[in-house]
Each structure stands twice: as C-alpha cells, then as structure tokens.
C-alpha cells in the first residue's frame, strides 16, 4: 500500500537479493529443462553423450529446484543459498566441455558468468568469492590436462579483473539504491509526521498509498469513496473535520490532502456564536440608552444645552447600534447562517424608504439626493427586499458620508435579465491604490488613515457578500476628487402576476 517506502535496512536488502536469486534460478531451470528436452528430438542418438546430457540436465534441474525451495525459506540466509548456487554454476560451467577447451581460448570467457551474477545477488565480497571458486576449479582442471604444469596466470588474472569490475558496478548500484531508499525513507518520515492526511490514488480510483494521518481518518473503503468524490470537506465519525484538496500528479494519479480543520472550525464557531450572543445582548441596553436619550432630547427643549447633550448620547447610541448590526451581519455571513428570503416587492418602495431614512442626513450636509427608477423596472420583482434595502442604505450612507455639498444619485434600471442599481456621488473619490481592497472588511480606502469619518468599514464587505448571496455582483469606479459610482447587479426575477396565480 505504501509507495513512499523503499528498502534501506539490511533485511530489505536481503529480500531484494532473494528476489533476484529467484529470477536467476527460474531462468536457469527453464534453460535446463529446454536443454534436457532437446536431447529427445529424433533421431535420438543413444550413443553420443545422450545419457550424460540427460542425467546432467536432470541432476542440475533437481538441484535448482532444491535451491528454489531453500530460497523460499526465510530462515536460511540468502547469502549461503547464493554461494551454493554460484558454486554449482561454476562447477556446471567448468564441466560443460573438455578441460583443455575450458582453460584455453575463447571458451574460457564463460567463467565470467557466475562472477557477474554474483554482483547482483551477493554483497561486495561475493564477486571475489565466486572468482576464487572459479580460479580454484580452473587450476584443478588445468592439472588434469597431461603435460600442463601450472594454470595460465593471465587467465586467473582476468578472473580477478572481472571480479573487480563487477564489484565496482555492484557498489555503484547498491549505493544509488541505498541513497534512493534513504531519500524515500526521509520523505516517508515527513509524510508520516504530518498531521494532514495524504492519500494517493490512481486513474482507476484505487488507493495506492496513504500516510498514518490518512489511515486514521477512516477505513480504506470509506476513504476510497471520499477521495474520488467531489466533496471538499469530510467530517470523520470521531468529530474531526477535514478540508480536501486534490491535485493530479503526472504518472502516479492524484494526491488528495486532508487538512484537519477541526480546531479552526471550532474556534470560528465559538467566535461566531459569541459575536451573535454579544450583539444580541447589546441590543437590549442599547434600546434603553437610545430610547431614553431620544426622549430626553425632545423633552428638554427648554434647556438647549441639556437637550444637545442628550442628542449626543442618542446619536452615539445610533452609531453603536449600526456597528452591532454590522458585526452581527458579518458573523452570520461568516458562519453561513444568513438566509436570503425572497418575496415579491416593488423596488420603488425600497427606494422611497431609503430616501426617507437618508434625506435628513443628506440635507444636513447640503447634498442633493436623487432617486431615479427607470420604466424598464417591473413593478413587482422577486428578491429579498430587506437585504436590498440594507445594501442601498450602506451605499447611500457611504456616498453621503464622503460627499460634502454635492450630488448623490440612486438609479435603478433593468438591462436584459439584470437589475442594475447605481449609487453615484460627487464626493472625494477613492484612490486607485485603495480600490482593490475597498470590499475587504475593516478597510475604508484612503480615508482609513485620517479617521475623519465614522464607521469601521464593514458596510461594503457585508454589502458585497449579501449581493453575492443573492447571485449578483458589485463593482466600483472612482476618480479622486470627482466622485464614486457603485453598481450592484442582481439577477432579475419578475413576480408572477396575481391573475396568473389565480388561474393555477
């Protein structure tokens, strides 16, 4: 299951030798069987070495089968089996022809075969041991030849050179495997140490590997169902919450990373709930402060100074009330608790309400406030009139706040299937550098630094989120010193007429 793991331990190196040895044994066994069967192809020549070949094949094949069996027993060290195998191979090669052919001429090159094989199935000393065995047999065979007093020293030296070269190749190979293994082990350690679950799956949507954190999230079957799905979050039975991101990895498949968001979600939930509770609890005393100060302001007409002070308490309570509303809105948007409640309404009524709320404020600042509703806007459309009202109050409030003696115009118009609400002013405008974060919470363009105007800058971010919740968008254009235009575009749903409804 774990692809990240590659062998680095002695044990796994032994397993690798065992596997390679197995491959050689099977190849040789196959060769011997074919060699043995060839002897029976007619016309069978019973005289010329037939029996010798058959017996040789049979005996050699039997020994290979024994070695295969031994190799399957992990209790027997693989190096011993390999040495026995190489000894047999050397012996087989040495006896495969007349001694004078084996110690002279080109056929002597076959001695190299066991040495090269030994590089693949034994540690560094294996090549010298095999070369030694070959040299010993080579010498013995030399002495069996009449008139030969000593083995050819160059041939023995050749064996030594061969062994050295085989050792160099084997050492390079072993080192690179070990390095790769170490690297993989490091990678594996990093993956296992991660608190994120990492799951790799292929094009067939089978899980190839997963780390410890991954396997702790769910059983493999459940996990397989999740990773290939479309969902971007996963709630584990133990209550943990994960976000899922998937990225394709060429040649492998897809890596799905499960990030544990439990703590973050808990904190966010606690924060939202606290904010909602606090906001709600703030409203009751605020209602008292605002109500009593409003009454005092109106009752103390005979004492202008006291009336003015009461008026200050009242207007500050109003500011606080607006802030609490904004904070609550934001908390609910963040928590995903806010709901859009569509109902049939007339945008002209909403414009009139906004006009009624804002007129006094605009007149105080000597602003000409205009509301224009184009004939293209149907009298009854469907949407959340309360939220549209809230957005317009925010935008018009801003326009009035940042304009001193000028013009603020609200225009409603329908273009195709879209309701466009433009709020334009002739105010101070917003510097281009500040435009990108104008919809971010707690940002208020260049004005933020000067703190000349009140508010914490939540209105625009709330408006944007509300517009998006209603499936629309909001944009802004501004030039410093000339003014700003906010445009809200909402999908237009026309209410079914009463007559249509009654015929249903």
């Amino acid at each position, binding site marked *: 299951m774990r692809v990240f793991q590659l062998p680095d331990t002695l044990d796994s190196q032994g397993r690798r030798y065992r596997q390679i040895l197995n491959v050689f044994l099977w190849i040789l066994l196959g060769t011997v069987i074919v060699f043995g069967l060839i002897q029976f192809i007619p016309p069978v020549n019973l005289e010329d070495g037939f029996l010798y070949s058959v017996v040789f094949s049979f005996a050699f094949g039997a020994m290979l089968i024994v070695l295969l069996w031994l190799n399957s027993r992990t209790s027997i060290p693989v190096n011993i089996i390999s040495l026995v195998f190489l000894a047999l191979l050397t012996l087989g090669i040495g006896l495969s022809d007349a001694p004078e052919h084996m110690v002279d001429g080109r056929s002597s090159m076959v001695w190299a075969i066991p040495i090269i094989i030994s590089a693949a199935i034994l540690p560094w000393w294996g090549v010298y041991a095999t070369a030694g065995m070959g040299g010993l047999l080579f010498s013995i065979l030399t002495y069996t030849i009449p008139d030969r007093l000593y083995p050819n020293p160059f041939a023995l030296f050749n064996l030594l050179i061969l062994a050295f070269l085989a050792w160099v190749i084997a050492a390079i190979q072993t080192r690179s495997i070990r390095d790769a293994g170490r690297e993989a082990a490091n990678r594996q350690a990093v993956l296992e140490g991660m608190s994120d679950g990492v799951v790799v799956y292929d094009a067939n949507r089978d899980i190839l590997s997963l780390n410890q954190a991954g396997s702790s999230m769910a059983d493999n079957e459940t996990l397989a169902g999740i990773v290939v799905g479309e969902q971007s979050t996963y709630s584990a039975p133990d209550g943990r919450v994960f976000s899922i991101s998937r990225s394709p990895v060429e040649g492998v498949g897809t890596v799905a990373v499960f990030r544990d968001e439990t703590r973050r979600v808990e904190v966010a939930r606690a924060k939202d709930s606290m904010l909602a509770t606090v906001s709600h609890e703030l409203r009751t005393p605020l209602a008292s402060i605002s*109500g009593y100060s*409003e009454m005092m302001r109106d*009752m103390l007409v005979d004492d202008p100074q006291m009336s003015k002070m009461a008026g200050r308490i009242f207007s500050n309570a109003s500011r606080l*009330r607006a802030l609490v509303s904004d904070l609550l809105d934001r908390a609910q948007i963040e928590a995903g608790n806010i709901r859009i409640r569509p109902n049939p309404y007339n945008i002209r009524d909403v414009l009139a309400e906004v006009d009624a709320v804002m007129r006094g404020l605009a007149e105080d600042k000597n602003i000409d406030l205009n509301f224009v509703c184009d004939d293209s806007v149907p009298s009854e459309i469907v949407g959340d009139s309360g939220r549209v009202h809230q957005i317009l109050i925010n935008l018009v409030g801003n326009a009035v706040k940042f304009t001193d003696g000028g013009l603020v115009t609200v225009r409603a118009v329908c273009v195709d299937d879209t309701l466009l609400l433009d709020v334009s002013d002739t105010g101070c405008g917003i510097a281009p550098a500040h435009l990108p974060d104008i919809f971010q919470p707690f940002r208020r363009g260049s004005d933020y630094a000067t703190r000349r105007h009140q508010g914490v800058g939540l209105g625009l971010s709330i408006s944007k989120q509300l517009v998006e919740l209603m499936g629309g968008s909001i944009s802004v254009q501004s030039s410093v010193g000339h003014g700003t235009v906010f445009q809200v575009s909402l999908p237009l749903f026309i209410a079914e007429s009463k007559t249509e409804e009654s015929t249903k």
Partner: protein
Amino acid sequence: MKHILIVEDDHDLAELWRLAIERMGEPIQTEDKRDGRSAMDRVSEPPPPDVIILDMHLPIVHGRKIYQYVRSAKHLRNSRVVIITADRELADELNEQARDGTIVPPDGLIVKPVLVKDFQTLIKRMLD
C-alpha cells in the same frame, strides 16, 4: 380609555415604552408584566387589552407561546399585537412564517433598538 398591555422583562425598557405611550398625550391606560407566566395569566382573563406589546425572549413562558394563545383565544380577537424583540433572526423568521401563512401575521413587528418616534407612530396606528 384605551388599554395597552406591555409584556417586557427588561425593567428599563418596559418603563421606556410606558413613558413613550404617556408622552403621546392620549388617554391610554398601561399595564405591564415582566414574565411569560404572569402575562399569560393576564391575557387569559378579561378585560382584553386593546394593544399587547409583546417581547419574545421572556422568562418562564416564551413570547411565541403567548402570541399563539392570543391569536387562538376568542375573547382576544380584537386585541392587536405588536411583537418587539432584540433577536433579529427571530424577527426574520416570524416575517417569513407570516408570509408563508404558518402563523397569523402580527399587527406590528419591531426589532430593538427602535426610535421612540417610530414606536409612537406604530402604537398610534394600532389604536386608530
């Protein structure tokens, strides 16, 4: 003389509503209850108030229950109900239910804090 029942658990607010009604300068008699149980006891007995100003989050019995009772009781069919709450979510929910027809719409719905001026306008409308 018109009769208004104020059901509000916050003492200061109950006093504020009473003062605001008095300041309207009309002959109105007010009476207040601070929890759901005593409000329930009061409305179940005659005489029926002309207007009931009803807070929602009340001790003992929730304002919602009282509202349901008022709307179902025959002797209160001429009483007008103004729901007044600081819980905006609840207000939204009530509005939606009123639209869906799940509940009888209240005669007035106020989310605290409210301008005294607006409160007085609403009460005046209720009494007309």
